[in-house]
């Protein structure tokens, strides 16, 4: 009888075990995990802290007892695998409750040891009140402090998804919260101007955000409870709860120590079938690498969605099938208060680093017909290869629906679509669901105009940096008087679009000219006019004043 051992029991491990059971009904399947819980929704933990998910049990997909009863899978919690012997096909496991060693024989081994939060050693890091968030027990610990009013000032370290979601939920619970990010932007993998939209929204919602700063030490009270954090700039932040969320690292030591090859990303190297270099040993989930669909190299994207899909593929391949995992695009999505953000494929920086010559576009639009109540703004960034016009990546951020357009984009990129392909997609349309020209199609149209030289654009981040650098621009605000009153870019000349042709003499055709309006449409019309009139360099401010993330006057 085939004996299958699975190490790790959150998403990938339990998915692989469940699929193996269906493929190999007569096998003996055992899952060992050092955790107290199995098969839980790790991604739901921030919302448990926020109280949006009321009880722990709501997070659990399936209890160990049910795995036994319904699937015939033996799950051993609080069982830590400590050694793999590939020649003998044995795994040594410690029963953490009884403190006894057990040895399991296997014919097939699935490693899904996951990832762990990375916390650097520093002064005061072990003080009471400093938490990571990875397991249900972690979430319980943080939630209890909040419930017992033991958290009056919170600090979140790290502006990635977990950090941001935890921060949102702490603010939601009414706790004054500061988020410290070491990088110049939050939301890694998003372009700066997109991250700035999110940053402004978070600050509006009451989060205090400190960027370009590292937490270097913590100080506690005589009872050993955290009181404040010290930053590398010398600042001191008071906090009686600190959540450390600067990312996770794959748990690979068990695999490494038995001769399994670790890839360049630091995660376990696997082939397209998710099998390691040792035949019969598969690796899946947050501990394993994947291929990038657009880049000829392995990547490590620890995502619950990947873990589930790859878990199923391991189940098929480990039972003799042959199913490939072609690759990933680094797709992700996050809700931050009223804002939704999603990305897929290559960011501007990633595309440039990979050697692509790119053109990009940033276009505001709505998620539904403008006359249908309830529509909201969504802003689309697209990145394409200048030569082939192939779409390489995209980011969508706004209060409106972003999951639909990002998934369309994922599909398009997966099948090698060009910008022109996007512009003519036969997408579903009725007023409650979309605009007649959907936000994605509109963005693709503007990108096509840029690729064919009909219009040139400048991003708010580039304009701002070059102005700070003292470069000369002729900035023209084309909006109407009441709009101009509410604020514009410092130094901008006000000429409403309707007056542009009669007042064109006020402008110098030799200067670099940036046109701005609220969304970009009037700028586009103005740019056509000025270019036709012989102006040397005319650019529209991409995203308009709507997405200009800096101060206006």
């Amino acid at each position: 009888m085939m004996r299958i051992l699975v190490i790790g029991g959150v998403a990938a491990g339990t998915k692989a075990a469940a699929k193996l059971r269906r493929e190999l009904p007569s096998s003996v399947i055992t899952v060992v995990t050092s955790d107290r819980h199995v098969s839980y929704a790790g991604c739901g933990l921030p919302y448990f802290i926020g109280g949006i998910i009321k009880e722990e049990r709501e997070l659990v997909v399936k209890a160990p007892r049910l795995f036994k009863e319904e699937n015939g899978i033996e799950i051993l919690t609080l069982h830590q695998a400590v050694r793999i012997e590939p020649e003998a096909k044995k795994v040594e496991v410690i029963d953490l409750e009884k403190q006894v060693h057990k040895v399991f024989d296997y014919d097939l081994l699935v490693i899904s040891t996951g990832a762990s939060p990375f916390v650097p050693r520093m002064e005061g890091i072990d003080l009471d009140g400093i938490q990571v968030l990875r397991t249900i027990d972690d979430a319980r610990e943080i939630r209890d402090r909040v419930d017992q009013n033991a958290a009056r000032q919170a600090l979140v370290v790290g502006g990635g998804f977990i950090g941001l979601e935890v921060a949102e939920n702490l603010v939601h619970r009414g706790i004054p919260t500061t988020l410290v990010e070491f990088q110049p932007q939050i939301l890694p993998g998003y372009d700066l101007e997109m991250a700035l939209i999110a940053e402004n929204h978070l600050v509006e919602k009451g989060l205090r955000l400190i960027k370009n700063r590292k937490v270097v030490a913590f100080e506690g009270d005589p009872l050993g409870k955290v009181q404040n954090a010290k930053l590398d700039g010398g600042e001191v932040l008071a906090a009686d709860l600190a959540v450390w969320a600067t990312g996770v690292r794959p748990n690979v030591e068990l695999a490494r120590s038995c001769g399994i090859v670790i890839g360049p990303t630091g995660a376990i190297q696997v082939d397209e079938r998710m099998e390691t270099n040792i035949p019969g040993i598969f690796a899946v989930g947050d501990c394993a690498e994947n291929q990038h669909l657009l880049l000829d190299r392995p990547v490590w994207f620890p995502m619950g969605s990947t873990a589930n899909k790859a878990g199923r593929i391991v189940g098929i391949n480990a039972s003799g099938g042959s199913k490939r995992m072609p690759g990933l695009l680094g797709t992700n999505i996050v809700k931050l208060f009223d804002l939704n953000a999603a990305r897929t494929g290559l960011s501007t920086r990633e595309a440039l680093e990979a050697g692509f010559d790119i053109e990009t576009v940033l276009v505001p639009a709505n998620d539904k017909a403008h006359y249908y109540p309830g529509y909201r703004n969504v802003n689309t960034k697209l990145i394409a290869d200048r030569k082939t016009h192939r779409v390489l990546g995209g980011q969508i951020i706004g209060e409106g629906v972003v999951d639909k357009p990002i998934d369309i984009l994922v599909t398009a990129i997966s099948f090698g679509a060009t910008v022109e392909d996007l512009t003519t997609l036969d997408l579903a349309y009725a007023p409650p669901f979309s605009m007649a020209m959907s936000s994605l199609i509109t963005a693709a149209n503007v990108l096509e105009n840029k690729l064919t030289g009909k219009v040139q654009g400048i991003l708010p981040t580039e304009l701002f940096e070059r102005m700070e650098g003292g470069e000369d621009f002729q900035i023209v605000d084309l909006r109407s008087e009441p709009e101009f009153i509410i604020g514009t870019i410092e130094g901008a000349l006000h000429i409403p679009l309707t007056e542009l042709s009669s007042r064109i003499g006020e402008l110098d055709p030799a200067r670099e000219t940036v046109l701005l309006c609220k969304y970009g449409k009037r700028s586009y019309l103005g740019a056509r006019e000025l270019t036709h009139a012989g102006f040397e360099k005319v650019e529209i401010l991409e995203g308009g004043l709507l997405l200009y993330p800096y101060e206006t006057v």
Partner: protein
Amino acid sequence: MEIRVNAKGLQCPGPLLQLSNAVKSAQAGDRVLIEVSDFGFKKDIDKWCKKTGNTLISLDEKDSILSAVVEVVRKA
């Protein structure tokens, strides 16, 4: 006097232009009640009132429609 403006279905800059025109034609002390479906208006109206010196009395959201009441202090 209360002036009611239906700016539903209008996108930027429509609602702000309608408000500006209504305030222009009103007397000090009058109130303009404007209904808008463009949520970008939320931030605009707040800034516009501050800059023009008119008073934003209320800004409510119901069934995806924004209703704002502006008391006219001076002409826009």
